[in-house]
């Protein structure tokens, strides 16, 4: 009986340690999005120039939906040139980049677009409905939508050339219809 107890107490600690080991390895910041693999929520917004911007009108293309804000420093400032460069490089191949500015002031957004010379369409999500539809936690977050209109990759943090190219190249090889 005594011997059993001597073993039982350290043994009881094992599950607790295992749980802690698991818990401390998981980053509380990467929360898997339930939207990956599901159809991208539709939206219609107005660009800063006043033109309508919708996901639906680009069906059949690979769409990169980027949520950003002018106050999101430094990550949004790092990725803006990356997005612009890749938009220019891929737009002829059926790829659309769209920037959705959230929780921001119009002037600040316009200045940001001007400073980086962004030429892809940018719209403000003034009420936050689109960002909540996409389950956005913070900025920047980028959703890669395939040619069938499904969200395939959610990237949290600044997009790099590498992430953009590998993801978009892979989605471009897929057919537009199932």
């Amino acid at each position, binding site marked *: 009986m005594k011997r059993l107890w001597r073993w039982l107490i350290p043994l009881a600690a094992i599950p607790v340690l295992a749980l802690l080991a698991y818990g401390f390895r998981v980053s509380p910041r990467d929360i898997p999005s339930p939207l990956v693999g599901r159809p991208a929520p539709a939206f219609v917004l107005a660009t800063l120039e006043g033109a309508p911007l919708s996901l639906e009108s680009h069906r059949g293309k690979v769409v990169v939906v980027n949520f950003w804000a002018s106050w999101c420093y430094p990550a949004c400032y790092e990725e803006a040139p990356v997005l612009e460069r890749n938009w220019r490089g891929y737009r002829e191949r059926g790829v659309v980049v769209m920037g959705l500015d959230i929780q921001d002031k119009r002037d600040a957004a316009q200045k940001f677009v001007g400073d980086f010379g962004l030429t892809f369409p940018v719209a403000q999500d003034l009420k936050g409905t689109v960002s909540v539809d*996409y389950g956005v*936690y913070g900025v920047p977050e980028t959703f890669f939508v395939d040619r069938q209109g499904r969200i395939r990759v959610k990237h949290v943090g600044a997009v790099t050339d590498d992430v953009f190219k590998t993801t978009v190249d892979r989605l471009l090889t897929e057919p537009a219809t199932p």
Partner: protein
Amino acid sequence: MSRVTLALLATLIVLGATSFAAGAQGASPVNEQTVYDIATQLRCVVCQNLSVADSPSEMASQMRGIIRERLAAGESPAQVQRYFVDRYGEWILLSPPRRGFNLLVWLLPLAAVVVGLAAAATLIWRWSHRTRGARPAPAAVDAAMSERIRRELERES
């Protein structure tokens, strides 16, 4: 115009007027308490341990706006909650639903209390019994030993 059509017309007018009045008076027909109740169950996504009801952040205030709009559009509180869970996963709920694997979170503390109480009871029972019954008799010191102790004490003093 027959009487029946007149009556029908009158009813329609009255109905239209009342519904218009209801619509006008209830520019916000949404019960703010319901908005608050839903918001308290949702985690503010940009905060640490704050609900959407308690957070002053813009994201939370936009989420409260979305809750209000969805309720105004006729959704039930459960449907509104479902909408957020669909977008953010169960993570968004401040208390996990009581089913499946999540039950562990509810049951483990209870189990721990039961086990702890049982362990404490056993130990208390054992200690109280040991002191009452089987107290070991003082070891008999043999004559040679007591003689030796006496001699050493004398030498010290």
